[in-house]
């Protein structure tokens, strides 16, 4: 069953429309990436999903039921601006967040023990205490004693401690060093494999392509593209093909000839040091024609269709819409 379904959701603050007729479905065991430039309305959309604010029009359903406050127990929400109680101990914070999300104290204590071990946070509590988590509460570190990275890890743990069915993360990787970012990424993938639905916003395109099953690109509050990550990329395929010839076995005049070719889009050096020529193919000038052209010029070391990256789609779409 679909975890979260948005149907023509709109939200306005004063005269500014921050979400315009947005629809999306988030399925269990999938990761949904929310993309958009600053001020596109990503946070507002995530807040509506997390029951913090309500849409002015449209409907949001959680597991088939109209979304209400009580569903928040089954969600984990981590806002972009992180914050915890400075003078509260690590374990106290975890217990507090687990309890307000419906876990009993004993359930929470079991989860805390397990997660702190996994996230290598056990040294944040005095290990000499062997009388159970309850007695460790007073001995665990306070937030103000933790580094920024450690506090980020704690914040993430507070979000997932109650085993939510839906995880809503606003820029989850910002502030993490590469090691901890990988750790969080692995946990997100684990949770996904266990059936948790994840929706997150990010500016990091590498995360989108490697993590997300589905994406929604929004600009000025309205969706530009939506769908499976690969399908979205494919939908933007413009018939471009990349061709690279071995530099040592190339007909001497071929590169110069290609630069004047009417179908050439651009030429650039790839990381291996070979010149790559990108051609526009269509019915008149097919990929077969291009392949033949290449093979006549020398030994082909690279020939592939150029499917635009999410980054390219993002930049081009947003720029063209903003120029309109």
């Amino acid at each position, binding site marked *: 069953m679909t975890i979260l379904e948005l149907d023509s959701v709109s939200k306005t603050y004063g005269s500014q429309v921050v979400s315009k007729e947005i629809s999306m479905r988030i399925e269990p065991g999938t990761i949904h990436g929310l993309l958009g430039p600053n001020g596109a309305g990503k946070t507002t959309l995530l807040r509506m999903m997390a029951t*913090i604010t309500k849409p002015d029009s449209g409907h949001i359903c959680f597991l088939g039921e109209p979304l209400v*406050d009580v569903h928040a127990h089954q969600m984990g*929400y981590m*806002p972009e*601006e992180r*914050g915890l*109680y400075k003078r509260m101990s690590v374990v106290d914070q975890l217990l507090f*967040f687990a309890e307000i999300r419906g876990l009993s104290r004993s359930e929470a204590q079991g989860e805390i023990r397990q997660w702190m071990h996994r996230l290598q946070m056990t040294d944040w509590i005095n290990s000499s205490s062997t009388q159970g988590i309850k007695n460790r509460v007073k001995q665990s570190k306070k937030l103000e004693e933790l580094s920024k990275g450690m506090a980020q890890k704690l914040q993430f743990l507070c979000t997932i401690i109650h085993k939510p069915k839906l995880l809503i993360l606003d820029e989850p990787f910002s502030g993490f060093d590469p090691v901890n970012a990988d750790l969080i990424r692995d946990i997100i993938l684990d949770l996904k494999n266990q059936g948790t639905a994840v929706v997150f916003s990010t500016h990091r395109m590498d995360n989108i392509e490697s993590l997300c099953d589905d994406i929604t690109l929004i600009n000025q509050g309205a969706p530009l593209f939506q769908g499976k990550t690969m399908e979205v990329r494919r939908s933007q395929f413009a018939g471009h093909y990349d061709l690279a010839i071995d530099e040592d076995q190339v007909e001497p005049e071929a590169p110069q000839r290609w630069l004047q070719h009417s179908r050439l889009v651009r030429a650039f050096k790839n990381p291996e040091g070979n010149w790559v020529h990108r051609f526009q193919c269509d019915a008149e000038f097919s990929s077969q024609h291009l392949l033949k052209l290449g093979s006549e010029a020398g030994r082909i070391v690279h020939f592939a269709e150029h499917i635009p990256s999410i980054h390219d789609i993002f930049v081009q779409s947003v720029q063209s819409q903003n120029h309109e």
Partner: protein
Amino acid sequence: MNKIGIIFRREYLSRIRNKSFIVMTLIGPFLLALFYGGMIWVGTEAVNSTEDGGPKKVTITGQYPGLTSVGPSESFAFQNTGNDLESTKALLNEGSIDVILDIQDLGQGSLDSVTAYSTQSLSLRQERELRSHLELQLHRNQLQSMGLDPLALDSLRQGVELHCQTLSDTGDAQNSATTLKSGVGFVMAFLIYLFIFLYGSMVMRGALEEKTNRIVEVIISSVRPFELMMGKILGVAAVGLTQFLVWIAMGAGLITGLSRFFGPQMQQGLQNTQSMQGSGSQALQTSISLWDQFHSLPFGKIIFVFVLFFLGGYLLYSSLFAAIGAAASQDTDVQSFMLPVSLPLVFGLLIAQASVIQAPHGSLATWFSYIPLTSPIVMVVRSPFDVSWLEIAGSAILLYSTFIAMVYLAAKIYRIGLLKYGKKPTWKDLYLWIRQSN
């Protein structure tokens, strides 16, 4: 445990575990005692300081038949040299005298034409003393001129001790004890005032801190803003009550300890005094009378009204303070909202001082004891003065109804304000937030 309970527990435990709370709870009463002790000392010192250097020398110039010679007063010694004003001014500038009192006979029998010259301004108390002393002298001189002996007339005056009693419906007479009732009422009202400001601002700072820490967005994804606000208000109230209880226990312990230690000696001292002066001692009579009056107070009713209005007032004001904390983005934003919200409370205290003592059942005192923003102060001050149960119930219903309405409005401001950062909100913004659906 429900959400309000979880928030309540976090607020309560995190605050009472705080070192500053423990230190303040232990030394608070001593600081308060030191403060009041200091005030009394300063007051006493101010009176004593005027007596330093002996009475001021006053030279009378001019002519007025009724005041040719004036006897000394508490702070002034008078002399009449017969010199004119200009030559006496030279003496004032030299510092040989302190004040010149120039009295001109305008032939109207009035003292309006008296002028006091001094190099340093006279205090209000000295001005008052000079005026009343001259009036007394004039009065005595006029009596003498009529052939009457002022001292003989004074001796004819007799003091009257008025015992005020109030009659109940059953005809039982009870001591009115107006002074004591006023005192008890004021102490209770001041406690409420102190508690509301102290702990209401704690609620406000808590809301502001959660907002500036950005933790609030995480919390309100799981807890409704109303629950967060109520949990915070009740948690802080419990912190305040704990502090009060500790202070009461400390006070009771101190009194018990002192009475055990000094009790037998005091008892012996009292017996000695009685045997030396007899049972008619003025001080002893006053103490016994005060004790009787104290016992005659309707304590059950007073305590009930105190608790009822104490809670109602705290809940009403702390919900407003919480909304202010949620609306503000930083400490400086708070000031502009604090003044109008705290003004009715200060006004209540002024009404209690100005009106309740003069006429506890007058229309001004009665009306302000019904208005919810002032009733926690005014009704409590009125409560020892035989206020009817009907009035108390009506005022309490109004207070608690306003609290519920205010919590509803404050929760709306709280809900929206918590997520607003940066721009300082205006009153118009708050109004729009209240009108906004979510």
